[in-house]
C-alpha cells in the first residue's frame, strides 16, 4: 500500500502545506483507489462463489453415479431352462433370451428372501423380483454365454439392484415418494432395507458407470459413459491429427512466410471471423458436407472429429500466431545473420521459443472441442448406441456417442435417476478437462525458456 498516513484532523495552514496532512486531491485519489480495489475483490468473490456453487451442485447430484447398489445372491443356473437341448452348444444357447434368465433370477431372489426368513407382508412375486434391475438377466446371460460350463451350477452373482432401490439407499427415493410411485412401493423398500441389514445388498464403487454403454429409459442403474468416453477420445484423436498440423502449419506460413498483401489480410480477417461462428453452424456444415455430400456414416466419430477440427482450427491458428509474434525479432535476425535460411531460422529458433504458447493454445482448443455439444447433435451423435465402436481406424466409422451429448441425452429422460447419471457424466467430463488444463500448464512450464 502506498497510501499516505491520514491525519486525524485537517488543521492545515493555508500558508504552507504540510506533508503530514493529506490534501483534498490526495484524499480523493486514495478513496478512488480504495473503491477500485473493493470492486475488484467483489468481482473475484462473486466469481469464486459461482464456481463453488456450480461444483457443489454437480458433485452433490453426480457423486451418486459413482456408487451403485448390488444384490449378492447365489443363482442356480437351471440347465433345463438355459440349455434346453442339453448339448452346451453356444449357438443354441444364444437363442435362449434374457426372459428365461429373468425367470432363473426371480427364483433366486425369492429363494434368498425365504432363506433369510424375512417377513414379506403382501408383496407379490413380481414385487420381490422387482428389487433387481431388468439389466440383471442380461448380466447373467452374458456371463453364462462366455462360460457355458457354468450351466447347472450354483454361482454367486452380484446383480444390479433396481434404480428405485438404489435411489433409496442414496437418499433420492423416500418412503413417501415411493408411496406415490407406481414403479415401486414402501414395502419393497422395507424389504430392500432388510436385505441390506443382512449384508446381501451392498453399495459400492461403480466401475460400470465408466465402462458400460448407455441403457434404455427403464434401467438407469445400468447406464454408463463407456461409449461416450470412447467416442470423445476418438474425436479428440481426429482433431489432434488434423487440427494441430493444419493449424500450426497455416499459422507458421501466415506469420513467417506469407507476403503481406490484401489477400493475406482477407484471410486473416476471415480466420478471426470463423472463431466467432456459432458452433451449431459448423454442425449444419458438417451434415451437408461430410454426411450428405461425402457420404460418411452418421453418428461416427470421424464426422464429429472433422466438424470439431473445423471449429478448433481458428482457435489454434490465432493462438499459434500470437505465440509466434511474441518471439523477439532479434532471434530471427541472429539466425539470419549467421547464414540460416528462413526455414532454418523458423524451425530451429522461432518455433521452439513459441512452443509453450502453441501447446497451450492447442490444448485449450482441444478442451473446447471436447465440451462441444451443438454440432454433434446435428450429425447424429445423439443416437442411442449400445455397441462399442471397434478400435481405430475402423472404429472411427462406427456409431458412437460423446460425453457432452450423453449429458444432454440423459437430461432429456423422465426418470430422475438419469439426472444423477448426467451429473456423473459432467464430473467425468470436468475431470478430463481438468487433466488437459493440467497438461497445458505442465507443458508450458517444461518448454518455457527465458531470454
Amino acid at each position: 500500500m502506498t497510501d499516505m498516513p491520514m491525519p486525524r484532523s485537517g488543521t492545515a495552514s493555508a500558508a504552507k502545506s504540510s506533508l503530514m496532512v493529506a490534501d483534498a486531491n490526495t484524499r480523493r485519489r486514495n478513496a478512488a483507489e480504495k473503491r477500485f480495489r473493493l470492486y475488484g475483490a467483489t468481482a473475484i468473490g462473486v466469481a469464486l462463489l459461482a464456481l463453488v456453487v456450480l461444483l457443489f451442485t454437480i458433485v452433490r447430484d453426480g457423486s451418486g453415479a459413482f456408487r451403485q447398489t448390488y444384490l449378492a445372491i447365489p443363482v442356480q443356473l437351471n440347465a433345463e431352462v438355459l440349455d434346453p437341448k442339453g448339448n452346451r452348444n453356444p449357438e443354441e444357447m444364444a437363442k435362449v433370451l434374457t426372459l428365461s434368465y429373468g425367470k432363473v433370477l426371480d427364483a433366486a431372489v425369492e429363494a434368498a428372501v425365504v432363506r433369510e426368513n424375512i417377513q414379506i407382508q403382501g408383496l407379490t412375486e413380481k414385487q420381490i423380483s422387482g428389487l433387481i434391475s431388468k439389466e440383471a438377466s442380461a448380466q447373467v446371460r452374458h456371463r453364462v454365454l462366455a462360460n457355458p460350463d457354468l450351466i447347472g451350477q450354483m454361482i454367486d452373482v452380484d446383480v444390479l439392484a433396481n434404480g428405485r432401490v438404489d435411489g433409496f439407499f442414496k437418499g433420492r427415493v423416500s418412503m413417501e415418494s415411493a408411496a406415490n410411485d407406481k414403479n415401486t412401493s414402501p414395502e419393497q423398500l422395507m424389504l430392500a432395507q432388510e436385505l441390506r441389514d443382512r449384508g446381501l445388498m451392498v453399495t459400492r464403487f461403480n466401475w460400470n458407470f465408466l465402462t458400460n454403454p448407455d441403457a434404455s429409459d427403464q434401467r438407469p442403474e445400468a447406464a454408463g459413459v463407456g461409449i461416450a468416453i470412447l467416442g470423445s477420445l476418438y474425436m479428440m484423436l481426429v482433431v489432434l491429427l488434423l487440427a494441430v498440423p493444419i493449424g500450426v502449419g497455416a499459422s507458421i506460413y501466415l506469420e513467417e512466410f506469407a507476403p503481406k498483401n490484401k489477400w493475406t489480410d482477407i484471410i486473416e480477417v476471415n480466420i478471426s471471423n470463423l472463431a466467432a461462428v456459432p458452433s451449431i453452424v459448423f454442425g449444419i456444415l458438417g451434415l451437408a458436407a461430410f454426411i450428405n455430400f461425402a457420404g460418411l456414416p452418421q453418428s461416427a466419430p470421424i464426422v464429429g472429429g472433422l466438424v470439431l477440427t473445423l471449429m478448433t482450427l481458428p482457435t489454434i491458428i490465432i493462438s499459434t500466431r500470437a505465440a509466434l509474434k511474441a518471439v523477439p525479432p532479434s532471434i530471427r535476425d541472429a539466425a539470419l545473420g549467421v547464414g540460416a535460411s528462413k526455414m532454418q531460422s523458423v524451425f530451429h529458433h522461432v518455433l521452439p521459443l513459441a512452443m509453450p504458447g502453441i501447446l497451450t493454445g492447442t490444448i485449450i482448443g482441444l478442451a473446447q472441442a471436447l465440451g462441444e455439444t451443438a454440432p454433434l447433435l446435428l450429425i447424429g451423435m445423439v443416437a442411442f448406441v449400445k455397441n462399442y465402436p471397434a478400435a481405430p481406424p475402423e472404429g472411427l466409422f462406427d456409431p458412437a456417442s460423446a460425453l457432452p451429448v450423453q449429458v444432454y441425452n440423459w437430461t432429456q429422460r423422465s426418470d430422475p435417476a438419469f439426472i444423477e447419471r448426467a451429473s456423473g457424466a459432467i464430473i467425468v467430463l470436468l475431470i478430463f478437462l481438468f487433466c488437459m488444463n493440467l497438461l497445458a500448464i505442465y507443458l508450458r512450464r517444461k518448454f518455457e525458456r527465458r531470454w
Partner: protein
Amino acid sequence: MYDMNRVENAVSQGDIKISANDVQVYYGDKHAIKDVSVDILDKTVTAFIGPSGCGKSTFLRCINRMNDTIPIARIEGRIALDGEDIYDRRVDPVQLRAKVGMVFQKPNPFPKSIYDNVAYGPRIHGMTRNRADLDQIVEKALRGAALWNEVKDRLHEPGTGLSGGQQQRLCIARAVATEPEVLLMDEPCSALDPIATSQVEELIDQLREKYSVVIVTHSMQQAARVSQKTAFFHLGHLVEYGDTDDIFTKPQDSRTEAYISGRIG
C-alpha cells in the same frame, strides 16, 4: 586474463573488399539512402558515423542483404563483394550471409547453451564432419572473441546467462565461427558498460587481422579508437569518407566538422 594482449595496429590495409556504387534505398516512399558510393578495404576497420536516422545502419544492412526481410525496402545501385554483385539474381542471400557475418546492437544469443550458440553456424553450413572438428571450431571462435577463458568450464550452460559484454562477445564468436570474410557490427557496444565496451573494442582491433570489419557507431570516440577508415553519413548521404585521422583532424565538409565538433547530431 585475456587471450591476447592488445596488439598495435600493425596490420597493413588490404585491397578493396566491398565496393558500393550509387546505392539508393527506399522504405516505401521514403528515400533512406541517396547515391552512396564507397569502397571498403579488406583487413581494415571502417566506421560509419552520423546522427540518428542518417541511414548508416540501413546501409550496413544492405551489405549482407538483411534488408531483404523488410518487405517495403527497395534497393537500387550496385554493391559488389570481391567484384561480384551481391544483388544479382543468381546470388542466394543465405550464402552471402555466411560470407558476411553480422553482430547486432543488442546482444541476441540464442536461448541455447554457449556451445550450441557458437556451433550453430558451422552446423547448418556443414563445415564439420565430426564432433571433434566442431569442438575445435567452437574453441577457436571463442578464443577469437576473447571469451574462451571465461566460459571454457561452462560451455553447456545457457548463453543467456552471461553478462551483457560476454553475451556480445558470444555473438561475435558466433559470427566468426562461420569464418566470414566481412564482419558487420551494428552499434555493438551501445548496450554495454564501459569495461565491456573496451573489451569488445580490443577484440575488434584484433579481428582486423583476418576480416574486413564495418562498424556502425554513435560514439565518435569509439570510431576514432577502433577504425582506420571513417564514413560520415548525414540525411541519407555519404558526406565524407576517408582515413579516420583525417576525418577527425581536418574534415573537408562543413557538416562533418559540425558533427564531430558536436554542433549537430
